[in-house]
C-alpha cells in the first residue's frame, strides 16, 4: 500500500483545487448564506459538509490510509495561507475532519468504497469536527439541547453533502477518464470494456 508519486501529487492538487473553490465560496456565497441562517445558527451547520468534501474525495480516489487526512490538511493550509476567518484553527479542524473519514474507511478495512463508507465517512468527519472542536470553541455557550441540534445538523450535512455528494463527484470524475490512473477509474473501465 505504498503511496505512488502520482497519488501524493494528485491528492495535494485536488486539495488545492478545492481550496480555490472554497475561496470563492467563502468570499461570494457564504456571507450571504450566513445572513440567511443568522436567525437560527444551527442551520448554518448544514453547510459544514462542503468543507469536508476534500477528505472523502481524497480517500475515495487514492484509497490509501492517510489520504483523507492528507487531502483535508492541504486544503486547510490553502485556507490558512489565503487568510481565512478561523486562523490556524483550520489546521486542527482539517486533521479532525480527515480522521473521521479515516475511521470510517478503517471500519470497512479499506475494502469498500461505496455509498455506505462515503456516508459514514461524512458523518464521522462532522462528528469529530463538532464534538472535539466546535463544541469547545465556536458554540461552547450553547445550551446542551442546542449543542445536540447543532451536531445533528452537521451530521445530516456530512451524510448528504459530503458522503453522497463526494461519492457522486468521484464517480463523475471517473466517468470523465480523469481518474484512469486510480482505482475508481479502472473500475469504470472494467465495467464498460472498450
Amino acid at each position, binding site marked *: 500500500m505504498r503511496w505512488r508519486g502520482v497519488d501524493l501529487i494528485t491528492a495535494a492538487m485536488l486539495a488545492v483545487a478545492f481550496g480555490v473553490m472554497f475561496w470563492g465560496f467563502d468570499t461570494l456565497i457564504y456571507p450571504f448564506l450566513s445572513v440567511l441562517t443568522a436567525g437560527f445558527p444551527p442551520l448554518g451547520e448544514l453547510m459544514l459538509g462542503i468543507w469536508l468534501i476534500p477528505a472523502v474525495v481524497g480517500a475515495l480516489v487514492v484509497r490509501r490510509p492517510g489520504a483523507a487526512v492528507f487531502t483535508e490538511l492541504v486544503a486547510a493550509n490553502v485556507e490558512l495561507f489565503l487568510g481565512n476567518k478561523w486562523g490556524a484553527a483550520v489546521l486542527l479542524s482539517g486533521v479532525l475532519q480527515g480522521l473521521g473519514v479515516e475511521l470510517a474507511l478503517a471500519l470497512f478495512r479499506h475494502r469498500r468504497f461505496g455509498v455506505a463508507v462515503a456516508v459514514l465517512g461524512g458523518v464521522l468527519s462532522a462528528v469529530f469536527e463538532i464534538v472535539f472542536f466546535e463544541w469547545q470553541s*465556536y458554540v461552547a455557550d450553547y445550551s446542551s439541547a442546542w449543542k445536540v441540534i447543532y451536531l445533528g445538523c452537521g451530521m445530516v450535512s456530512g451524510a448528504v453533502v459530503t458522503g453522497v455528494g463526494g461519492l457522486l463527484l468521484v464517480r463523475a470524475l471517473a466517468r470523465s477518464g480523469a481518474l484512469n490512473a486510480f482505482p475508481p477509474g479502472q473500475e469504470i473501465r472494467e465495467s464498460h470494456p472498450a
Partner: protein
Amino acid sequence: MSRIPPETMAPTGVPAAGVAGGPTPVEQGAHVEVRDLTWRPFGRREPVLVGISLHLEAGSRVLLAGPSGSGKSTLLRALAGVLTATETGELSGSVLIDGSRSTGSSVGLLLQDPADALVAGRVGRDVAFGPESFGMPRDQIWSRVRSALVSVGFPYDQDHATSALSGGETQRLALAGVLALTPRLVLLDEPTSMLDPSSAAVVRQAIMSAVRASGATLVLVEHQLSDWVDEVDRLVVLDSTGRVSADGPVAATLATQADSLAAQGVWVPGVPAPGLLGVAGALCAPTLPGGHGGSSGSVLVWADSVSVTRRARASVMSANRPPRQVQALQDVCAEVRAGECVAVIGPSGAGKSTLTALLAGVDAPTRGRVRGRGELLVGMGASPPDAIHRWASGALAARFGWVPQQAEQAVVAATVRDDVLSTSRRLGRDDDAAQARVDGLLEVLGLSAVADADPHSLSGGELRRFALAGAIAHGPSVLVLDEPSVGQDRLTWSAVAGVVAAARDAGVGVVLATHDPLLIALADRRITLAAGRIIGPVAEQRPPGRLPTMPAPAGRFAGLAGRSGPLSLLVACIVLVCGAPFISDLRTALIACGIEIAVAPIVLGFARPPWRRLLPALFAVASVSFSNWLLSPGRELSAGGLAGLRVAFFVVPGVLLASRIDPSELGDHLGQRLGLPARPVVAAAAALYRFEGLGEHWDQLARIRRVRGLGPGRSPLGRIRSVVALTLGLLIETLRQAGRMAVAMEARGFSAAVTSATPRTWAEPAPWRPGDSLMLVLALLVAAMPLVLSQV
C-alpha cells in the same frame, strides 16, 4: 563499447559533482536500446506505439518527427521510464538505458508545456528540485543549480520569482531543471513550438550548447525540422500508426525520402509550403439570422483605445510579496471586418492573447470599450449592451467563436462530436443541419476517427483542431483563434489554414494571434504588438521586453514575528487555540485578550494591521457572539461576549501570524526540523504553487462556457448548474495537470529516495533562531494565562 554495469550506477544514483560556472561534462552519453516496444493505453482500441526498435549510440543527437498524433511524446515518456507513472495500459518490449532498466538520474525529460515542471516559487529552488530528490549534499546542489542556469543562459538570479517569467524563460528554466541532474540522456518534447522566433532561437542555442558541452545523448521531438537539421545527426520518423517509417542520418534521409515524408505530413526543409486544403464554404459560413454574415469589409467589432491592467489575484503566496500590477495592453485600437483575416503578431508577452480575448468578448478591458457594429447587431433587439463583454452568453455565442491558447481548456463535453455540437444545440439550431456541418468539419480536420473519443485523450495538435471545430461549427460571424497552428504537421496545417481561409471567404471576420510565418502570410492585415502597444505596420521581432511593474510599498519594522521562522509562528498559533477552552468567565476573557493586545506591537511591529485580512475573522467573532447569546440557556449577554472573546483570543492572532508564514519555508521546516516524510511535504508545497494557476483556470473555463453559449444565464437553477459544470471542469483539469506534474516530477527523481537508500536532501536550511524560541515562550505564556487566571 564500454557499458556501465547497472549495479555501479543504481545504488547511489548521484552523478559526480558539477563544476561551478559552466555545464558539467558527463563522461559519456547514454546508450539506448529499444526492443519491440508496443503500448496500448486502456480505453484505446489501437496501440499508440507498435513494435518500435531503436538503437541509439552514446552521444548521438536524434530528431524524432512524425505527423500529429503519431506517438512521439509517448515514445519520449517510454524512454524516460515514466510511461506508467500516470497511465495504465498494455506495455510490451523493453527500453534499456546503458543496458539497465532503472533510469535514475541518468535521464532528463522536458515535457511539452514547461509550466508543468514548475515546483517552486523561486528560480534557484526550482532547479534544485532534481538534485534534492537524488539526495545531493547542499553545497553540491547549489553548484549544480548555478552551472545549469549558466548553461541555458538564464538572464535572472536565483531569487527571481518563477511566476514572473515569459514563455521562453520558463522553457529555459525547465531545461535547467533537467540539466541540473547532468543526465546522460536528454529527452525534449517540442521545446520551442510555443515561442516566438527570437525566443525560440535563444532556447535552441541553449539546448545545443548544453548538450554539446555535456556530451549527452539527445532525443528531440519537433515539427519544424528546418531549424534543427544542422544540429542533429539522425532523424527518426514515426508514421500515423505509431511505427518507425524512416530512420537514418538526417541529410541522407531527407534527401532520399523527402517526398514520402512530406506526404506523411513531416515539415521537410526545402519542400515548398503546403497549399490550403479546399474547404466547402458552407462548412464555415456565418449563420446569423440576418442572413449570410456581413457584406465584405464592413466593421463587425471595434476596440476603441482599450487598456488592460492585470492585478495579482488572491494568492497563498501573497502575504510576503508586494502586490504586482502589470499593464498587459495600453491604448490599443483594432477593428475586425467581415470577410477579412487579421493577424495579431509580436513577441511572447506582447499582449496578443489579451487583445484577442477582448475582441472575442470573453474578457473586459480595464479602460476603453470593445463594441459590436453593423450586421453583427442584427437580431440583438432594440438596445443591446454597448460593450460586447456584457452580452448574454447566447448572444455572444451566436456571433463569436474563440479558441484559447491552451486548447485543452476548450473542452465542454464528454466526446469530440458532442462537444463540437454543443453550441449549435444550445442555440437551438436545426439538429440535422448541425450534425452534417459538424461531421464535415471533423472530416476536413482529420478528426472523424476520434469523433466518439474523450477530447482529453487527443494529442496536442488534435486538441487544437478540435477546439477550432467547436469554435466554428455553429457559424459565428467573428472567429478568434489564439495560436491555431501549433503542433500541426503539413497535412493538418493545410486543413487548419483551409478552414481559416474558407471562413474568411464566406464572410467571417477572422482574428489570428500567431507566430507562424505561413499563417501570417495568409492574413489580409496585421496588428503588431510590442509590450502591450501597437507598433508600426511592419512585422518586427524583438526579445520580449519587461512589462512595466508598479513599485511596492516599503517594508516597516516587522516585530518579533519578522524574526521568527514559519514553524514557531505556526506552533504559536496552535498553542493559542489550545489555550482558548480554558477561558471560562468574562473576566478571564477580557484579561487574556487585553494581554494579547498589549504584546501585539512587540510581536507584530508597528505596521498598520491588515484590516482586509482581519475582516472575515472579525465577522466570525461577531457571528459566534450572536449565536451563543441567542442559544445560551437564558439568553445572557455575557454568554455571547464570552464566546466571542474566546474565539477572538486565538483567531485574530492566528490570522495575523499565519500571514507571515511562507509556505515553501514551512515545507523546509516540516521536512527538516520535524522530520515529516519528505514526499508528502514536497507534493503539498508544489501543489500550493498551483493555486493561482487553478484560479485562472476557473476563470478561463467560465469564459469558454460563455462564448460557447453555455453561460449561466439569470435563473438560480442555471447558475447552480453552471457552478457544478465549472467545478467538474476544474477538477478534471486539476487531475490532468497533476498527472503531467507527476510525470515531470518523477522524471526529476521525486520518488528516487523510496527505491534507493539515499534520503532526499534540502537545498535550504531550516534554522531555529533565538527569535523562534522567544516567540514560542511568549505564545506559551499568553496561552497559559486563561488556565492561571481560572485558578486564582
